[in-house]
């Protein structure tokens, strides 16, 4: 446990005085995500520790530099978990980085997003003020919801000092199955599974195979196969393999992500088709019941952003070669939204010291 709030505050104050930008860094596990930022490193990894954890209240509060592994371990001891299954990408991943990046794991559509899990936060704003928003109860509508605004803000609005999260009871059992399924049929199939009350908790489509994870109590999972057999044909998965599969998927250790030096992430309506953007079918991996696609392609950024916009989704150049200097990484914003981004940035970080240019060049 270590409380570095005042040290971090002093560093921010100094940056304001000297008009020098800061690059906020936790475990540096997501340094590849977004634009590279120039600036003095503001290291939050030394600001760590679980401040408060009440399993009976389903609430955990921890400092930003606390490793995600430590949080997951503490929760596991009480048969609890983070609903959002945030990816780490490295053992050094911290809670603050996970929240700032705003990335959720395979369970996102069925359990919660990382934003959904945030109940409160303490931040250091661009005037070196330590501010607390939200709290430790889910129903909290006093003032504007700055806590959830910080999720996914990529360190552009302020330094996250600590986060209060809603946690959930762990599902007691899991089992996964493989279905032969063309991508265009998967959405209807998954909807049918859920309509029957089957406890879908993650999906993954690769070519003509759909992997589905089910999570529930012991009895329900034990009887799951019989229930599925009444309506569907499938291949049962070996238990030792299926757990590993979802972990590897979340952490991008699945073979699909090997040598994916250029990787696009498309968040789309579940019925939007993006296969026209791929050179071949095996270049698309789809999660979240059809709402999230990972894409390897030679298509231009303009074509991808345009396709996403027309279909009411959004695209991100998730990974790119270090030698490249892409012009745009995140889906371009409409004019009013772009203006709001500039204004809100100024409202939180009037001197422009936090991660300048991390998301959009004006930030």
């Amino acid at each position, binding site marked *: 446990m270590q409380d570095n709030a005042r040290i971090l505050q002093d560093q921010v104050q100094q940056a304001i005085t000297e008009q020098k930008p800061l690059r906020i860094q936790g475990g540096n596990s997501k340094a590849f995500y977004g634009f590279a930022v120039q600036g003095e490193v503001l290291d939050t990894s030394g600001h760590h520790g679980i401040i408060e954890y*009440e399993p*009976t*209240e389903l609430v955990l509060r921890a400092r930003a530099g606390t490793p995600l592994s430590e949080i997951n371990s503490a929760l596991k001891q009480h048969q609890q978990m983070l609903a959002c299954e945030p990816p780490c990408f490295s053992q050094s991943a911290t809670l603050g980085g996970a929240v700032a990046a*705003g990335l959720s794991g395979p369970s*996102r559509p069925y359990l*919660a997003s990382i*934003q959904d899990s945030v109940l409160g936060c*303490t931040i250091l704003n661009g005037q070196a*003020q330590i*501010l*607390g928003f939200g*709290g430790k*109860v*889910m*129903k909290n*509508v*006093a*003032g*504007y*919801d*700055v*806590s*959830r*605004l910080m*999720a*996914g*803000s990529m360190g*552009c609005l302020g330094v996250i*000092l600590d986060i209060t999260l809603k946690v959930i*009871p762990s599902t007691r059992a899991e089992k996964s199955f493989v279905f032969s399924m063309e991508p265009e049929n998967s*959405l209807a199939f998954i*909807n049918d599974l*859920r*309509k029957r*009350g089957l406890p879908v908790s993650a999906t993954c489509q690769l070519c003509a195979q759909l992997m589905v994870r089910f999570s*529930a*109590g012991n*009895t*329900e999972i034990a*009887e799951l196969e019989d229930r599925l057999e009444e309506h569907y044909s499938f291949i049962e998965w070996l238990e030792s393999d299926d757990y590993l599969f979802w972990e590897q998927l979340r952490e991008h250790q699945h073979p699909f992500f090997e040598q994916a030096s250029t990787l696009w992430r*498309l*968040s*789309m309506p*579940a019925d*939007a088709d993006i296969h026209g953007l791929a050179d071949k079918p095996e270049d698309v991996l789809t999660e979240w019941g059809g709402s*999230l696609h990972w894409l390897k392609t030679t298509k231009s950024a303009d074509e991808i952003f345009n396709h996403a916009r027309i279909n*009411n*989704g*959004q695209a991100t150049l998730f990974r790119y070669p270090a030698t490249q200097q892409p012009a745009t990484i995140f*889906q*371009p914003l*409409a004019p*009013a*939204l772009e203006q*709001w981004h500039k*204004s*809100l940035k100024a*409202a*939180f970080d009037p001197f422009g010291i936090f991660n300048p240019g991390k998301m*959009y060049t004006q930030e």
Partner: protein
Amino acid sequence: MACAKRYSATWISVVADPVIREALLSALGEILDAQFILSTQEQLKPFECDGLSVYKALPMVAVLPGKETQVQEVIRLCHQMKVPLVTRGAGTGLSAGAKPDPEGLLLVMTRLSNILDINTATQTARLQPGVRNLAISEAVKQHGLFYAPDPSSQIACSIGGNIAENAGGVHCLKYGLTIHNVLQVSGFTMAGDPVTLGNGGLDNAGLNLLPLIIGSEGMLMVVTEITVKLLPLPRHVEVILASFDSIEKAGQAVSNIIAQGVIPGGLEMMDNNAIRAAEDYAHAGYPRDAAAILLIEIDGSSINVSEQLQSTRQVLQESGVISVKIAKTETEKALFWKGRKSAFPAVGRLSPDYYCMDGTIPRKSLAEVLGYIHALSEQYGFAVANVFHAGDGNLHPLILFDANQPGQLESVESMGAKILEKCIEVGGTITGEHGVGLEKIRQMPLQFSDDEISQFHSIKAALDPDNLLNPGKNIPLLKHCQEYRALAKNLHPNQLLIQHEPTA
């Protein structure tokens, strides 16, 4: 006693600048048919307040647009003329968030009430803001779907109003608040520029602005279209009525149920005053002598429900429950809930007025805070009925009084303020779902420091630099904050030497 301007129980007639009024009416006549422009006292009276009727004012003018383009033109006009703009949905709000500005325009959104699209593949619905909350679930039920957030006013409240308040309801314990069930919100900035937050997918580009807008009480933009997430209807639902001989045991049972890993679809509590009132009104079969009852709804697959039911029964036994009834038929389930859902109007029969509080606390503090409310009830001499969302600690003490008796309103507000202060003291919040509006603006400085309130003002200035959208609501002026804190501590502002400070 020095305090910010507040409104008495009678409406205030403020004569707006006649030149501005005439110019505004003339320009509105180019945008809307005359029948949808309301300007006489008689026409405006129905819109003088929302569900918190002790705060009233007539707007300078009220309009009821029927098309999105009309909304945009009205906003642009107000922006150009620097006329304050308050948006109103169904007027069911409970914090005076839709109380009109006497020198402003009231934008009534009820005519924009179409369900634009239901997409059963993506399980989403696209709605205009005037669509009633319950109408959403009614429309999608045929597809085996429902919209989860269900405030008790759902028969009347609008989805636009739900967006403004980040509305909750009985089922948000399991299914989340409005923010957890909305994908996309479109509308206009106060400059009249179109803006869309979110999209058809589950992530949005750039900053996560949906949470900023949802719950912003009409102060950051005007919403004209909402895309909500729909969920498959649960296959099985069971409803339990559990009776206790003490509030403390019932409160502890709430904590114990959730600590066991069961997340019910709903978990509500009622105390004896509320039980008797509800039973007299709805005849739901509630035990009239119970100190408290819990209504617990468990939903899911049949196996899942069976497991949870068993676990819950065991927890209730271990928590000292007196009796457990599980509804045997659909009729009985509906009857159990009828008592709870009619609790507010039932309590309303007991006295000329009631004041409904909305603080949220950690579940572990339920017994302590309910005991404190009971003590206040005796101290102030007002009966209290407690009917609330126990599963997420969202209290709704109903303080019974008579606003026609001199001094009672002020006394009740004083008692209510103490309840909210207690909520903060135990680590909760002053509002779980009703919003701050005008009603709780004096308690905001007890929950937030001056720097935090200043940050809220900066956000507001970033998105509404002219401060035209619902001005004077939600976020108190900094110059009043010291006064409010001193009042809470029965101190003169000059005696308040120590600022409320956030902790890292």
